[in-house]
């Protein structure tokens, strides 16, 4: 960043860049291009060295220069694409050096972002495929990704390409193997048998990654295994042992493995998998134990009898955290698989002693209410709950209790009448929670209308097996996720990813929504997170600042001296200024920093400039006298326009207010 008085530095750099010998020293060339390129003001001097670098003899210089083109383009912002440069880069795809080739692809991709990135036509695609073996693993993975956008013309060509790619499925680098797999899956869209074949071949590398020493790699691989299982449920069934958890693994891997086990279960391995899961249920970590119980519940939809038996045995352990989850699993299971109702009802008596938490109580009460006629002691268990209703803290449990007792009253009126009366009395007269009281009143009035009405309202179906079919994940076609393979989507999970991308979209459109006034008046409402948001309101009809304004220091000085101060105001400021932060924030709203004192200098000064779309220049001086703890802002305009001045000042005030708030 150019500090005040850094003119010399800039001059030095200009000199360095003009020197034709700079390229003789490749390291120096690299360093100059890498560092200088972020510095506004010297870009024009860079262009020629970069273009020269493209034709340099040393491959190292060409590598730097090719990426330098992308940097240059991104610095210019929305400047149009230089056709000659793009052509030059396309021709460099035939370069001898493999890294230059890959860098060309990356550079073109960035320069042509607006037009959808680099175009891969037939000659380029085949050229790249032939050069593949010369690249290192990173280059291979990247080129495989670029090849995804190539569409072979004929079936013959397609299979030629697949043959060329074959060797990369055997690569020792998981990145390359997964990249090749994805390319296979995408190219062979119309040939399901080829896709299946590829997925069989990638099984080995994936399983190896799953038991890799690197936990992180293991996790990524497990996520992809789950993705494949969604389409081919039997794919990993014979390797189920690879997904058994070990004691030392971190939690997130264990949970993934349990999910995988749950999905690959079939007739042959169900016994072993359930045995293994049962072991996890007694894990010291309550979270993991509960996840394992839920997993058994998931398997129970297909293998009901075995699972219910295991779950019943778990109840015998009389552990709170286990019992509550088992009862919840029972509740869900009874709803989906009515055939297990009998077994569940036999298992229930006695477990009320070991349930303390809200969710577990609700599940138990629901079960007692709906299937109470088959559980001999149901009324007595509920009676205990009624006795203790005063000390019950969760309204949801009380509501569940009301509903359950009403249902049980229909099937076993004699045993329930008395306590139902007590419960209703309590709910209506003493309960403080309005929802519970309303529900109590509702049941009371329903009872007044007559028993037939009550039956009509309360005797809903007790199970819904069709829901199980709905929930059962039908085998999704491979093509539905092929484009997500080897990306972050499976790692985050599809649902989470949808949420993330939705947030990102909202971020892009969001700033248009808030009314302009709120931004203009209240600077500190804008928190750090939506700092970017400041920019767009200022874009709206009132004021549009031109991005990437180029103003030399000399010109600024001349203009500054020739103009009168149009507006001067003092803003509160605590402590020191961090020039980088301020400059970055100002950059966001398209206010350029011409010069700034070093951090900690006294007095601290900064000169800023901006220009709106009508060509009106806003020149600003910030002056901070530390002892006053305030910042004096003076603005000068090249044209006298008061409302422009006000909107510009409010933008500036917002930024300074925000930065100040972060500090304090």
């Amino acid at each position, binding site marked *: 960043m150019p500090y005040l008085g850094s003119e010399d530095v800039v001059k030095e750099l200009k000199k360095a860049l003009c020197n034709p010998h700079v390229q003789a020293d490749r390291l120096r060339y690299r360093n100059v291009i890498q560092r200088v390129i972020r510095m506004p003001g010297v870009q024009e001097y860079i262009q020629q060295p970069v273009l020269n670098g493209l034709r340099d003899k040393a491959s190292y210089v060409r590598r730097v220069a090719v990426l330098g083109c992308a940097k240059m383009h991104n610095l210019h912002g929305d400047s149009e694409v230089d056709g000659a440069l793009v052509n030059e880069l396309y021709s460099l795809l035939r370069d001898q050096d493999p890294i230059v080739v890959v860098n060309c692809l990356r550079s073109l991709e960035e320069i042509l972002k607006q037009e959808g990135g680099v175009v891969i036509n037939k000659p380029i695609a085949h050229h790249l495929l032939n050069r593949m073996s010369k690249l290192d693993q990173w280059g291979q993975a990247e080129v495989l990704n670029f090849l995804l956008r190539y569409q072979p013309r004929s079936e013959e060509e397609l299979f030629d390409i697949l043959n060329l790619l074959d060797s990369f499925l055997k690569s020792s680098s*998981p990145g390359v193997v997964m990249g090749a797999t994805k390319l296979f899956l995408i190219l062979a869209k119309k040939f399901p048998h080829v896709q299946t074949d590829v997925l069989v071949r990638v099984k080995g*590398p994936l399983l190896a990654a799953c038991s890799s020493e690197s936990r*992180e790699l293991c996790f990524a691989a497990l996520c992809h295994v789950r993705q494949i299982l969604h389409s081919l449920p039997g794919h990993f069934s014979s390797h189920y*042992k690879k997904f058994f958890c070990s004691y030392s693994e971190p939690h997130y891997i264990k949970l993934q493995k349990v999910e995988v086990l749950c999905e690959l279960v079939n007739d042959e391995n169900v016994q072993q998998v359930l045995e293994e899961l049962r072991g996890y249920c007694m894990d010291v970590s309550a979270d993991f134990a509960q996840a394992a119980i839920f997993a058994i519940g998931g398997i129970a939809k297909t293998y009901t009898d075995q699972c219910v038996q295991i779950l019943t045995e778990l109840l015998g352990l009389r552990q709170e955290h286990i019992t509550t989850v088992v009862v919840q699993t029972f509740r869900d299971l009874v709803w989906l698989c009515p055939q297990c109702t009998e077994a569940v009802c036999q298992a229930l008596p006695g477990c009320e002693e070991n349930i303390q938490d809200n969710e577990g109580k609700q599940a138990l009460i629901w079960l007692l209410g709906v299937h109470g006629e088959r559980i001999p002691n149901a009324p007595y268990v509920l009676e205990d709950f009624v006795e203790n209703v005063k000390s019950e803290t969760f309204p949801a449990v009380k509501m569940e209790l009301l509903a359950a007792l009403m249902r049980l009253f229909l099937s076993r009126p004699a045993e329930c009448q008395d306590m139902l009366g007590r419960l209703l009395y309590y709910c209506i007269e003493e309960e403080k929670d309005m929802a519970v009281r309303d529900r109590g009143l509702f049941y009371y009035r329903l009872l007044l209308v007559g028993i037939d009405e009550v039956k009509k309202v309360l005797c809903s179906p007790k199970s819904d097996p069709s829901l199980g079919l709905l929930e059962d994940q039908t085998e999704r076609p491979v093509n539905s996720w092929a484009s997500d393979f080897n*990306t972050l989507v499976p790692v985050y999970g599809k649902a989470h990813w949808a949420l993330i991308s939705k947030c990102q979209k909202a971020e892009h459109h969001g700033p248009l929504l808030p009314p302009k006034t709120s931004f203009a008046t209240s600077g500190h409402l804008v928190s750090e997170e939506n700092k970017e948001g400041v920019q767009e309101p200022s874009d709206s009809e009132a004021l549009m600042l031109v991005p990437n304004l180029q103003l030399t220091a000399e010109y600024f000085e001349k203009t500054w001296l020739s103009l009168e101060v149009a507006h001067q105001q003092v803003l509160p400021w605590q402590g020191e200024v961090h020039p980088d932060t301020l400059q970055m924030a100002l950059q966001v709203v398209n206010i350029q920093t011409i010069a700034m004192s070093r951090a900690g200098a006294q007095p601290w000064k900064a000169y800023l400039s901006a220009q709106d779309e009508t060509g009106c220049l806003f020149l600003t001086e910030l002056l901070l006298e530390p002892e006053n703890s305030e910042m004096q802002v003076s603005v000068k305009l090249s044209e006298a326009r008061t409302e422009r001045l006000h909107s510009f000042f409010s933008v500036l005030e917002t930024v300074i207010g925000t930065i100040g708030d972060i500090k304090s």
Partner: protein
Amino acid sequence: MISQFFILSSKGDPLIYKDFRGDCGGRDIPELFYRKLMGLPGGESPVVMHHDDRHFIHIRHSGLYLVATTSENVSPFSLLELLSRLATLLGDYCGSLSEGTISRNVALVYELLDEVLDYGYVQTTSTEMLRNFIQTEPVVSKPFSLFDLSSVGLFGAETQQSKVAPSSAASRPVLSSRSDQSQKNEVFLDVVERLSVLIASNGSLLKVDVQGEIRLKSFLPNGSEMRIGLTEEFCVGKSELRGYGPGIRVDEVSFHSSVNLDEFESHRILRLQPPQGELTVMRYQLSDDLSSPLPFRLFPTVQWDRGSGRLQIYLKLRCDLPPKSQALNIRLHLPLPRGVVSLSQELSSPDQKAELGEGALRWDLPRVQGGSLLSGLFQMDVPGLQGPASHGSSTSAPPLGLGPASLSFELPRHTCSGLQVRFLRLSFRPCGNANPHKWVRHLSHSDAYVIRI
């Protein structure tokens, strides 16, 4: 494409921070990452996290966090691979990877990062190519100290074995100072196997999984060719058969791309020109079908008196290694029911140790000779866990929370698959200096060795 790369210490202090693209805000990103990591709910994976439109991908390596941020939907495999490659590379250049070495070699690390990544794109990660560009000399901590011996690492480090290279020998930078002429020509070759085993309570074997690696760390000058001869009976896949014996079979093998396999089919010889630094020459896996017997069997007897809450565990551990081999640093970890208070023990030999901690029994055996049988009798009181009196006073069913037992151990000079390096030959003779030192080592260690009770 990487936007930023940074290294955090285990406590979250940024050691290295590099912004490649200048497209995202401030240096508070590492702090943001650490806050997110610490605030993560238990079951969620920390591997990939996001903030706004920035993804954080990280690996943990020797207690450090190596983090990359990106705003694109990148390939997780490539990026994770790159991070671990960076970890190896930094280790090669700084000697070893740790908080100390990184902070002593900040300039070197930045120089390396400048060469490896440009504008967030990988340029090259080969130690060989990078050597030409790196000017900074690594700062090495202490040449050798007894303290280093206590840590058992790879590459020539075994505490209780004679005739090995000290562990610090391998943890020196590949690019040691140019003035230092006494630099040794050394090469370390390790065959390392990780064993994961699951044994059911009735003693039947449920799962055996061996992950093997041949790792090489070379300090030889460039261009020296090396031939590694493996056991001739080595065969890949179920169908292949070699030699007359049962053969040494593995399920799957993958080689590093620089390995020349011309002589592999005929003589099981790997040829390669190793670059300086660390390299994984070969990886292999083997599951279910192990030719040699398992190293350990455990025979537990549990007496559980519900009435008094007294728990008696008698553990017999048999080591089935050949009599000449031995196992080191054996630790048996047995989770116990909640509320265990006292422990009384009778151990079969004096150098063993057993103690309670974190709701589990830990039984440490410093070394076990092959073919020997060790035993330990443990008695505990579990007052909180009194079952209903209706059951008999002493039942065979173990109480909840007991087991499964897991063993961790190291087996020096032993590979579970039986794979051995027959020879290591160097075609290159350095002038002046003596013959290069070659260290070949075989080691198996437990990844998860679980025995249900």
